[in-house]
């Protein structure tokens, strides 16, 4: 999860102390984010100890992170390139509907159904990439158009009805709600395995390197002979695969595919990415930060519900925490920029 250069500098420094301070310096963004996550968690635990019960942590907080968290992980790649994907929310509904219809029509089993979700999601993401690279549309506009199109298609394909396909497929409920590992819902497992795979892709593979390169300086990357368009399409495709995964988890959690959800999920996911320290300007970002960002949002929303605060105030406080989280990160960056 670390960038190559930083690792080398650390290795060159023999003294353990230096190593620790270098680590802290490099990781301070995530350390702070993790710190605020822990602080918020402790606050709610003091207010209502039942908040920290495993039933709430697993079924309430972690489970609530699954859909938005997967969307956020996928879209981290896109945001690091300096792009944005507004279509991920409604695309989740569209993919869910397509999976439901396909599974029903072809009597697919669980695994085939999941595969359909990943493929359809991936294709959808690649269409975003094509619009951005081939038609040279700004990502904001291209994905806004796709957001609308996905919403419409979800309504058309579903014939405006929720699709109740999960009871016909053995094991579909288990995708999110089963327990391969006792006490941990599978949906949560999917979230973390998805995060680990994404982190490997981002930090250890060529696609990850180009993700950062395009975000840091697209023109320079192009000049150095990289086929930026090809990689962008692939990167939006990765975002789409995670949309597919989120859609599958969503249908398992709800027991059906519903065409009327998803709108607004994209903003929650993007907020999680930014809270996690990824820059909207591109070039910087981590998967672990995104997961922490998504967890901060989930902990906050769940905690406010556990406190049984009036909904109006829940919204206001959520807004304030987003501002504080991102502002604090900005201040830190500016300071560390001045120092170095």
């Amino acid at each position, binding site marked *: 999860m670390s960038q190559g250069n930083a690792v080398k500098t650390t290795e060159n420094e023999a003294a353990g102390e230096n190593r620790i301070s270098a680590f802290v310096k490099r990781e301070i963004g995530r350390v702070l984010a993790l710190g605020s996550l822990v602080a918020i968690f402790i606050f709610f635990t003091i207010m*209502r100890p*039942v*908040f920290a*019960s495993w*039933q*709430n942590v697993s*079924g*309430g907080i972690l*489970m*609530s992170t699954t*859909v938005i968290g997967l969307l956020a992980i996928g879209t981290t790649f896109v945001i690091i390139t300096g792009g944005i994907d507004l279509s991920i929310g409604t695309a989740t509904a569209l993919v869910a509907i397509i999976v439901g219809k396909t599974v029903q029509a072809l009597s697919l089993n669980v695994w085939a159904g999941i595969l359909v979700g990943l493929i359809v999601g991936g294709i959808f993401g690649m269409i975003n990439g094509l619009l951005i690279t081939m038609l040279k549309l700004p990502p904001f506009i291209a994905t806004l158009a796709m957001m609308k199109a996905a*919403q*419409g298609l979800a*309504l058309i394909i579903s014939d*405006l*009805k*929720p699709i*109740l396909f999960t*009871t016909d497929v053995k094991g579909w*409920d288990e995708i999110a*709600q089963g327990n391969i590992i006792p006490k941990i*819902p599978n949906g949560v497992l999917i979230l973390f395995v998805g995060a680990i795979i994404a982190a490997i892709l981002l930090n250890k593979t060529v696609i990850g390197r180009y993700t950062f390169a395009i975000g840091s300086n697209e023109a320079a990357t192009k000049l150095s002979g990289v086929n930026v368009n090809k990689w962008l399409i692939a990167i939006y495709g990765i975002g789409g695969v995670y949309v597919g995964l989120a859609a599958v988890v*969503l249908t398992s*959690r*709800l*027991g*059906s595919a*519903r*065409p*009327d*959800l998803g*709108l607004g999920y994209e903003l929650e996911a993007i907020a999680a990415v930014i809270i996690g320290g990824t820059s909207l300007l591109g070039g910087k970002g981590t998967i672990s930060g995104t997961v922490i960002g998504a967890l901060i949002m989930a902990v906050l*929303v*769940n905690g406010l*519900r*556990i*406190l*049984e*605060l*009036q*909904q*109006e105030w829940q919204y206001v406080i959520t807004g304030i925490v987003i501002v504080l989280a991102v502002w604090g990160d900005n201040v830190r960056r500016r300071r560390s920029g001045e120092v170095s």
Partner: protein
Amino acid sequence: MKKVLTIVAVASAMALVVGTGSAVNAADKTLKIELISKGETHQFWQAVKKGAEDQAKKMNAEIRFQGPATETMIDKQLEMLDGAIALKPDAIGYAALGTTESLSRLKAAHDAGIPVYMFDTAASCPDKLGKNSDCALGVAYTDSKAAGKLAAKKMKALIRGKGKVLVVGHSQTNQTGIDRRDGFINQIKKYKGITLLTTQYSEGGDALKAQEIVSAALVANPDLKGIYGTNEGVSIGAGQAFKAAKLKKGKVKLIGFDSGKQQMQNIKSGLQSGAITQSPMGIGAKTVEALVNYVRDGITPKPLIDTGFYYYNKKNINDPKIAGNLYE
């Protein structure tokens, strides 16, 4: 004499022909009615549409039914209303999303001489509904407050008048949502043994958010006795939260709203106690009937037409009176 009779006969026959002829002409003119609904997604609106279509066919009218993708899109719906007025149809049916925002549009329709009858939800018209209102002739609706009240009575019986009850609303701003909530709350407050928790909302009836709200509520209140969800999406979400928490069926009573395949299954399986159903087809049919009678025959419709509601559970779900209003 014979001649006279013949003339009379011929004349009356001619009059009859002319008479029926003109009557045929009047009835022949297919009335064009634009119906602007609050949504299209929920099957409820599909049932309203079906009721309107069936009635239109019977009365030689033609309807066009449209609504925004979700019930939070007030602007989108107002655009549709503007578009409908611009088409100058014979009449407009309107289910108000923007209860105040739509008033200027309704006045514009009135000024253009297009009669408007509202359905499901009325706009907050300043004057009395009727022929002289520049808002609308009236509204065909489910008395949502009374429906909420019925849900409260059923809830009281289910939990034997004791314990904590949570209301999960689907909107804080839409009038139907407010009435379903208030009808329930006002009634449940009369029962001394019942404690009402802070009402939570899953805006737009998002089933996933509703699930998360109910999951948190089950943790915060292990002694929770009942949940009342104000629409189909909320009811589904609550049921799924019960499943995820591996709750014993019937431990927490759940009363929902409307129908849909999944909710009906949940009621049959005992995961959910029951639900209130409106008569969506009746809403559509009564609206079209009122408008056609007014335009064609000048019969002023009643300003308020209550289209009714029922409580259903595992026992009466197949009752013909109930089943006709349920949709998968």
